[in-house]
């Protein structure tokens, strides 16, 4: 079975761990995240009739107190950028993290997701900003870790892109 390392990137409290928790049935423990800044989880998915084992590196949220360690990103076959729709600043963080990831692991496939779709009315991230992301070539998904919306699709989409890499999945900027 193929194994793929995937990193979950995003600002502080955007819902990365919640998304992973929704996706992975038996979580190891998220205590490690606060200790060394990462928790590794595993999930098997089937893409194009092929079983793929996704090793999910759930990195600690990037904020002013703790930066994402580049070393955790190394060897990733893809990554997921998570934003919180109710906080516009998480979009800026995602942009910065994407730059870091591209610098560290190169042009590997990635997917972005704007979390908290269940409170869409409270979003600070506008449609215009989302459109700009798409113009940059970002695949933008919407989801809610709280309701479980878009979670499976998120990981399967990335796994599919990793299996069939296309130029659209990488940032052209």
């Amino acid at each position: 079975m193929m194994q793929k390392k995937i990193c979950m990137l995003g600002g502080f409290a955007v819902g990365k761990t919640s998304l992973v928790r929704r996706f992975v049935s038996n979580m190891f423990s998220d205590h490690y995240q606060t200790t060394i800044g990462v928790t590794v989880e595993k999930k098997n998915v089937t893409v194009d009739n092929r079983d793929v084992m996704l090793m999910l590196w759930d990195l600690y949220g990037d904020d002013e107190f703790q930066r994402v360690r580049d070393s955790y990103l190394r060897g990733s076959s893809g990554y997921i950028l998570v934003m919180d729709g109710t906080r516009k600043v998480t979009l800026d963080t995602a942009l910065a993290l994407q730059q870091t990831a591209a610098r560290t692991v190169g042009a590997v496939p990635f997917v972005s997701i704007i979390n908290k779709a269940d409170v869409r009315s409270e979003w600070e991230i506008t449609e215009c900003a989302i459109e700009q992301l798409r113009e940059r070539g970002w695949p933008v998904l919407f989801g809610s870790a709280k309701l479980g919306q878009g979670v499976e699709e998120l990981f399967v989409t990335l796994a599919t892109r990793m299996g069939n890499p296309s130029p659209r999945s990488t940032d052209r900027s």
Partner: protein
Amino acid sequence: MSSDPHRSRPDSPPSEGLTSFDEDWTQLRTLLLAPEQTQLDELRERLDNRSVHPREVSLVLPEAFAVRGEKDQQLSNVLTPYVEDGFAAAVRKSPRAIVDAIAPIMRPAIRQAITRVLRSMMQSFNQSLNESLSVRGLRWRVEAWHTGKPFAEVVLLHTLRYRVEQVFLIHRETGLLLHHVTVDAAVVQDQHVISGMLTAIQSFVRDSFGASQDQTLDHFQVGDWTVWIEEGSHAYLAGVIRGAPPATLREDFHAALHDIHAQHVDALVNFDGDAAPFKATQSHLEGCLQAHHESSWPAGTSKVWMLVGLILTASVWLGWIAYQAHARWSELVTKLRAEPGIVVTVVRSAWENYYVKGLWYPLAKDPSGMVIDAGLDPSTVTAVWSPYYALDSQLIATRAQSILQPPNTVKLTLEGETLVATGFASSEWVREMRRLAVFVPGISRYRADGLVTPSDLIERINRAEVRFSSGSSTVEASQRAALGTVAALLRDLDQSVSQSGQWVMLEVLGSADETGSESTNIQLSKARADAVLAILEGERFGQSTTITTGIAPGVKQRALKGESAGQRIASLRATLVPSTRGTEISRP
């Protein structure tokens, strides 16, 4: 320029000579451009006909596969289901060929796995045996009972110096697990997640202390476990060790990792997440699964040998017992088969259980007695005998003995179908024997000329006489022999009548010749009878014989008449009397 047909042709004036010109032109063009025209026609046909020719495809197929394979996984994705189906069909159609193909790979792996399991079992068994009777062994047994763990496992844990329980081969850059081996007793969490976390921890430590990429976390310790990490250029080994490992183990880790890098360098450099090629590292990683215990092997081995010796001795002893029992049984069966009056039809034997079935003539030897005589436990022998009438010669004699019931003085033998009776018997028995003998099954005739009756004996006794010298009452030596014969005849007579209820009355009658006075002769006659009686009394007779003395009736008459010296004798007169009278007889 006039040689250019394309340019000169339009300039040509239309005339009658045009036809001949065209023909010349066509002929000239054919001569000049025939090969090129043929090629042009072929190319046009190829363009018009879009079907692909296998021959042409075959020329570029390998290169096409290689080019597309480098580009993406699409070719692999497309081919995979067909390859899988083809392989499944090949396995179904010709499994032998598949077995032959993979046997060189599978056999060493299977052999190695079996060796490992056996070694582990033997080690566990030795340890358990070694400690099973010691004080601490009993303590550990209590612990095993308390914790619910197998006793062998508790012993191993307490006597363990170190044991490499798990070995991870991890891709250095991605943290993905390439291969993993473990001992059977180890508790294994998700090895893929552990690989990722180990890699993350290494990165964390390296980043935290500002170490360079080639400076790595060497080992860390948690409780009873130590995790040793051996770094390579593309992959690293992580060994989970219980106990205190020796420094030499690190060299083994290093050598294993070095060999893996040397043998799988391409797979490591081009690793894209497919760990399948690294199954071949199994033997290298298993070589790192080492263990060492406190107890020395020889001690454990000696106990094993002692146990094996005891088992062998017990086996030999049991085998010897079984062999002896079987030999006794075989001997019994042989004797039963040879015994007249016994016919063995069925014989079976299992462990300590025997069964025999057949025919038995009730007058023949008792088979149950033969079982005891053979030394077998009668309770282990089941015998089923059906009665029958045997015609064995030995049994005919027995049967005759049983029917005729001869006295002890008679001996019955068989000569063919003739019953021969010898010895002494009463006249009544002889009469009875002559009547019944021919009715005994197996006997057609009898012969009784060897039988002596009491009448015969009495006649022979009564013919005997003891001679004396003139005037003497001393039995001379020559006469004693005659008395010995008489004594023997008397004994036979005694025996022959003992069961008939009669007594033997023997009268010894002394006599004298005419010489001397009557009174002297009477005294002499009496003395002579007493002398004979004294000698006969020295012989042993049965209780049925009574001897008396007397004077021959003619002594007085002979004295008066002066008859010959042949009268100096003691004569014998035996008679049979009923027992009621025998008791009344007393010596005069």
